[in-house]
């Protein structure tokens, strides 16, 4: 019984080592665009660039890389649905030859204020593991969506204007 368990454990270890080795062939770098605003706020567009590189000796087939965005504010930690932030969610390559790179750009439109972290993950068709880029953190400053300086004059002024017209009308009558 003990011998059987040991064999299973050895087999699992070998599979895991193989998977890590396969994932290790592909590396990913991620960096923000130097033109990104230094202190971005809601509504700004920023860009990240990733470079997926096959550092192994064999061709890696069916490469898929994708961007993940998470909010890391204390008490509000959550994955963010990219639907509203970016139309560019994944990059694919049929094959990545040894030494070949796949460059991808990830534009983001900043929708909500907060602290965020992006990471690019890569898997291949036959690989058993996942390669991830270094994290890139950024903060989005709040921007008033509905500006009181615009709403208040209209919301107060227009009814007052009509009231004035009403009073003038009554006086004229």
């Amino acid at each position, binding site marked *: 019984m003990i011998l059987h368990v040991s064999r299973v454990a050895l087999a699992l270890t070998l599979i895991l080592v193989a998977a890590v080795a396969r994932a290790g062939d592909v590396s990913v770098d991620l960096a923000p665009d130097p033109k990104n605003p230094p202190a971005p706020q809601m*509504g700004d567009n920023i860009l990240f660039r990733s470079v997926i590189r096959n550092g192994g000796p064999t061709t890696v087939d069916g490469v898929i890389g994708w961007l993940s965005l998470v909010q890391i504010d204390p008490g509000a930690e959550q994955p963010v649905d990219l639907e509203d932030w970016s139309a560019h969610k994944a990059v694919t390559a049929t094959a990545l030859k040894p030494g070949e790179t796949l460059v991808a750009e990830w534009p983001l439109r900043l*929708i909500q204020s907060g602290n965020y972290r992006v990471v690019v993950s890569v898997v291949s068709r036959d690989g058993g593991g996942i390669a991830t880029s270094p994290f890139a953190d950024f903060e989005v400053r709040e921007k008033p969506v*509905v500006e009181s300086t*615009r709403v208040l004059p209209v919301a107060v002024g227009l*009814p007052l204007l*009509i009231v004035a017209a009403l009073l003038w009308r009554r006086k004229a009558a």
Partner: protein
Amino acid sequence: MNPILLIASKESGELLLSTRGLACLLAMAVVLSGFGLLLVGDTELSLLDNAQVVYDMAGIVTALGALLALVVGVDTVAGERERGSLVPLLLTPVSRDSILLGKLGGVAIAWVAMYGLAAPYLWAVGSTGQNLVDGLAAVALLGTPVVLGFGFLGIGLGACLAMARTGLLIGLIALVLAASPLLLGPSLRQSAIGRAFDAVNPFSAAVNAYDAVIIDSVPIATQMLNLGTTAVWLALALWFARTSFHRVAR
């Protein structure tokens, strides 16, 4: 002066210059102000919510415009009948169609006034977000046939019913039913009944077009089907108003 223009200017003058008409516009302005002030205090809005705000405001403006047009439409015939001024108007040497066109013009001017009132509100809540201009264009293009249709429905109801109150009640029920997409979420409208209702409801057509143009940034030129639905509604309401008005005997 052309009798059509004369009647239209008299109808619009009653709205824009009379105490009753100004009180109506004040009520509309207070509703829009209340909505705007509610938004100012909300600090949790995201940029997406800004588009949602413009979309909501566009829907409210269309509903208020339809309400105003309905009230004006019912009052323009049934109100005149109750005030005793309809018979003298019908006895003037002016064709029924000319009188009706003048009254339709009055409804149209009421909507122009409502749109003019709403534009600053839409700008105030939406100028920092996306698709404000497209939103204004969508309200003008798709909201106008919906609103005018309710005005013409009001004229038709006012013409074929003896009492203005009855016409107003029926018209309000129709308006509440048509404007239900403003209250019901998209998921509730995904049932077979909901989809069927959406397909024939001009208000749904307008609201769906607002959604596409303002929130999803779809070009307004792609909304021809929705525009067609609202145009059919306008044509049917116009036919109803004309038929009913031609049957007015007293």
